[in-house]
């Protein structure tokens, strides 16, 4: 009798859990007709249209959460869509949505030009290699601060709306609730301006002492050396390319990137590299493809983290770039991070911040999850 009761209780519990799991998918609608893809990226096959206003369940997400696998309850309409194409639903908490990490971010088989296939094939967020755990540990011995990050690059990176904005109290994560701990862990450190991120900077000036602020840096110190000394960061977000592509060749650019990566690793700082978005209408388009490939190759060579901003920004209007200059990433107009309105699917700067936060989240979990009190 007791065994029967237990069995009924168990079945009842399983049924309740199954029902609960079945009914927890948030229901959403697209605010305009949207294309559904076979995977979380615009290089995947286009399946069909999702008509505006048709309710669909958010059943899975990519690792970042900026793409959702949606389906009507009867499975009649299914496919992947950028999260920002859907009307905001306060019940959407990406931490509750199952992650589908099996489908790659891109499908190079559908890319018409072979030269960019490799760029599409590279994951948007690379895994954190075991080598970075050693780098972090060495950095801690050298006195680097675990919760301090810095940024290195040109005007796209110097922009106070990139990462620095995390230091503000008003950060609206919306559905990206899983990033909250990371924002609070690193946020404060982003308020300190970086000497190594300046307007007009390129890979060949980051080592030029003439570009170092004499009010902050020692005589003869390069901007990179000065910034690392002042901030003692554990992670450096590094992106170059838009300036270099105008005056440099891919081989020299790759060597300069290697120099920057080696300089960073020697100081126990994890360099997070990033490809850069570029428009095919720009006259330097083909050079930019080579430069971005160089970034990917250097990241692989040193097993350092890589953000493939180039691929992630392809579905955005004008590739997430300002229409006025085609170089800088366009912005939402808000002066704080705001992810409850789908900005990451429309504005380059919002997307770049999101990808950087996701990479930081992965790094934090890999590097400090075992720290006492964490």
């Amino acid at each position: 009798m007791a065994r029967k009761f237990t069995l009924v209780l168990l079945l009842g519990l399983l049924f309740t859990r199954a029902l609960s799991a079945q009914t927890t998918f948030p229901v959403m609608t697209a605010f305009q007709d949207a294309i559904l893809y076979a995977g979380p990226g615009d290089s995947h096959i286009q399946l069909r249209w999702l008509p505006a206003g048709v309710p669909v369940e958010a059943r899975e997400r990519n690792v970042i959460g900026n793409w959702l696998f949606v389906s009507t309850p009867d499975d009649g309409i299914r496919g992947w869509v950028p999260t920002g194409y859907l009307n905001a639903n306060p019940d959407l908490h990406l931490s509750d949505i199952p992650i589908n990490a099996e489908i790659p971010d891109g499908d190079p088989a559908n890319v018409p030009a072979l030269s960019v296939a490799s760029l599409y094939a590279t994951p948007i967020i690379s895994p954190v290699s075991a080598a970075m755990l050693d780098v972090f540990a060495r950095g801690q011995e050298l006195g680097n601060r675990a919760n301090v990050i810095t940024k290195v690059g040109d005007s796209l990176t110097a922009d106070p709306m990139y990462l620095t904005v995390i230091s503000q109290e008003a950060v609206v994560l919306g559905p990206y609730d899983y990033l909250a701990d990371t924002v609070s862990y690193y946020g404060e450190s982003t308020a300190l301006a970086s000497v190594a991120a300046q307007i007009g900077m390129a890979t060949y000036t980051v080592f030029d002492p003439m570009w170092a602020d004499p009010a902050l840096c020692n005589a003869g110190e390069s901007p990179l050396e000065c910034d690392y000394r002042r901030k003692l960061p554990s992670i450096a977000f590094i992106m170059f390319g838009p300036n270099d592509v105008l005056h440099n060749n891919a081989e020299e650019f790759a060597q300069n990137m290697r120099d920057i990566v080696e300089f960073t690793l020697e100081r126990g700082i994890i360099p997070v590299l990033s490809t850069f978005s570029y428009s095919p209408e720009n006259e330097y388009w083909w050079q930019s493809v080579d430069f971005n490939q160089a970034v990917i190759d250097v990241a692989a060579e040193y097993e350092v983290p890589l953000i493939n901003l180039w691929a992630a920004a392809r579905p955005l209007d004008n590739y997430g770039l300002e229409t006025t200059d085609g170089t800088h990433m366009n912005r939402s107009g808000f002066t704080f991070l705001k992810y409850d309105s789908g900005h990451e699917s429309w504005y380059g700067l919002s997307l770049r911040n999101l990808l950087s936060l996701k990479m930081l989240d992965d790094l934090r979990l890999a590097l400090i999850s075992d720290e006492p009190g964490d």
Partner: protein
Amino acid sequence: MYIMKRLGLILLLLTLAACGGAASGGDPADVVERYLTAKVAGDGDALRPLLCSPMEALFSREVNSFSTVEGARLENMDCTRQGDTDVVTCTGEIVATYGTETNRFPLSSYRVVQEDGEWKWCGESG
């Protein structure tokens, strides 16, 4: 005739003085000023002979340093050698624009060395 001889003598003395200057490598402050001018202009032909041997490997960095900004120019440059030392201190700044932003790079102190009798720029003075 006498005046012509005097003029010739003066010209000869001036030429010898100039040659003497060249033999001792010229004025290090002038070398630094020429280096800064060439760097800001991105003039590789003028820049290359002013770099000391260790800096030759950084030629690309030096000649491209201000290529990403527009209208880079030197303002109020004045360089002076510090006594008989290998340090030349400059005042003034490099001013450049990037879009609507203006960048200012204050000049500082630089190290000079003599190579084959010629003064060369050899980096910032730390």
